[in-house]
């Protein structure tokens, strides 16, 4: 389709009014509040509920909350999570009562799509999508976060300590007839 060009009017042919109009817009912005953020010196404050990188959390007593149930590994759509269960001879958990703790817990942050399924499926409230959005590394291996790193980054989450409660409940029942 051919578009016919109309000839310019006199006002348009004068040229200067349009230039002045443009400068007026530019000048107006000089006196407005700045919207550009000086990233990375200045960091963005993410809103509540933001889905950043998933990290493991500890409970208020500093124990690992994860029990290595591997539901997050199962649900993870890009298969970013890899958990090594302790096995029969593995180290005992650092928290009382629940006998199981992951031997290794790896999240490949290059694969992670920050969907939050792991947080949603976790029966122990042990993994949360936190506020980190800028993850960098110099090689691919560095971007696979291991258990130690995930726990350090995750911090603590004060939730219900269900295993501790179970143990307290069990200890209160001193009259249980079978003693082992």
């Amino acid at each position, binding site marked *: 389709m051919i578009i016919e060009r109309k000839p310019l009017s006199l006002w348009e042919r004068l040229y200067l009014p349009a230039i002045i109009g443009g400068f007026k817009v530019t000048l107006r912005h000089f006196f407005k509040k700045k919207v550009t953020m000086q990233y990375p010196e200045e960091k963005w404050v993410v809103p509540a509920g933001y889905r950043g990188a998933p990290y493991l959390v500890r409970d208020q007593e500093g124990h690992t909350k994860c*029990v*290595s*149930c*591997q*539901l997050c*590994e*199962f649900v993870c759509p890009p298969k970013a999570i890899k958990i090594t*269960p*302790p*096995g*029969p001879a*593995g180290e005992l958990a650092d928290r009382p*009562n*629940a*006998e*199981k703790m992951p031997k290794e817990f790896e999240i490949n942050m290059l694969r992670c799509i920050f969907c939050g399924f792991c947080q949603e499926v976790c*029966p*122990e409230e042990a993994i949360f999508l936190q506020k980190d959005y800028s993850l960098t590394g110099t090689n691919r291996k560095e971007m696979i976060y291991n258990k130690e790193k995930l726990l350090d980054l995750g911090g603590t989450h004060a939730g219900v300590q269900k295993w501790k409660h*179970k143990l307290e*409940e*069990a200890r*209160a*029942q001193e009259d*249980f*007839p*079978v003693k*082992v």
Partner: protein
Amino acid sequence: MSATPTTETKPAPPAIEKIRIKIDGREIEVPKLSPDWQGKPVPTTMLQACKMVRNDIPHYCWHPKLPVAGNCRMCLVEFGTPALGPDRKPLLNADGTPVIRKSPRPAIACATPISPGMEIYTQTPGVKQMREGVLEFLLINHPLDCPICDKAGECKLQEYSLDYGASASRLVEPKVHKPKAEDLGPRIVLDAERCIMCSRCIRFTRDVVGDDALSFVNRGSYSTLTAYPGKPFDNNYTLNTVDICPVGALTSKDFRFQMRTWFLKETKSICTSCATGCNILIGSREGKIHRYTPRENDGVNGPWMCDAGRLHYKWIHREDRLLDVLVRGEKSTWTTALSEMADKLKLAAPGSVAIIASARQTNEELWLLSKLKAKLGAISDSIPRIGKGDHLLLDADKNPNTNGSRLTGISFTEMGINLVKIAEGIASGTIKTLIVFGEDLLMHSVGSDQLGAKELTSEVVQEHGLTAELLGKLETLIVSDILPNATAQYAHYVLPGCAHAEKRGTFTNRDGRVQKFLQAIQPPGDARAEWDFLHDLVYNLTGRSGFQTIEGLFNEMAKDVPAFNGLTWAGLGDAGVTVKI
């Protein structure tokens, strides 16, 4: 010697009397008698009748191969029977149908026999309420520690709670706590809290194994499963209780915290620990085997298998597996080794070659070796491996394919009879080439490094005179094995083979049942399935065009070996086919 293959060894059962009943309004005809746990015909129960029309009634304590206990109450159903008049004749409605008197009480479907004209209702609001109620009781003291429970994913309590249970708990009192992670035997861990008192394990060990080792103690909420004091629960079948436990009360120490069940890929296979050939499922994930579980086959092992066979898998993942083709101690390639070997064997004089093939090889591999034997005019045998058998499944013959070795002509009725001749032949210098498959002539020690299996599979291998000195005299020694062994150190050619989980093939068990097994994991390193490279070797030597696939190879073998005539790979199915031995 051709035999007609049959799928079952049992003769056809006589004609069965049938009766008509109605299940949820659908009229069906079911046999009056059905086999009980021992296979004896007894009146058909409601549960069996419902199973026949694929109406699965939830149940915990009932198991097809265990005596009926009727204590879990999960299978409660409502039913009605035809009303009889004073003359003992059925009353009829106006439209000619019989009047049905609904029973005022429900009945447990697992223990109530059916009667003619009976109507069973499995989906009424009453039945749904009863199931919900039973589940609520079962869950009262259940710890709900599914995240750390090995049974999660294959737990009947989880499944039925989802299907029939209430969505929330009404319990406000503290739960009764019982001992957790208690040692019940050398291979079993008991979590008493999770137990729902179905008594399957008690009945199994008492009635099937004949080792009355378990019982309940205490009453009410405090009821607990325990082994008799001073009598350890350590028979050779304890791990079956883990399979039949509908919850996570009994778990395997070996599989404890290894892998969640939903990740396991299950591959149909055969146990290779003895001549019984129990059907198994190999549970593997990402190339690692995590467990064996029995696969039901009433013609062989029923739903059970022994602990020794079940735990005999760790050698497959041993660090020191043979991974490279070695030619005179140097790392080489398959092509080089196979063509060199073929050239040497082509020049070998008739009678100067001996083959010792393990009865742990598959039928196909032994058949290919028998082709070599025919071509070279060789003398051959296998090595008998005799251990302890028992009354249930464990066989004294520890070779999984003794009959295969006989039927393919590698060994004879008395296995091991030729070993003396081979030793004499080497000593006198007439035998210059020895081909050894899957046997360590100098030691015979495979996979005895794991938990409890050594004393259970203690093998006695026939003594023979094939000493290191004799092996040193050989011009050519070809050894194929899976694990490093002393014989391989003298070998000119070492060919790394595959464990049964890494290849496909068939075994012929003690009753002559030809059973196939499938590949669960990939072989490590350069290891190759024996049938695969043997096929290449036979082709190089004889020019006989073989088959690149195991299906074709099996079908070719079936045409050639009289006992296997008429068999096909596809025709073997999952259960296997019995041939005349």
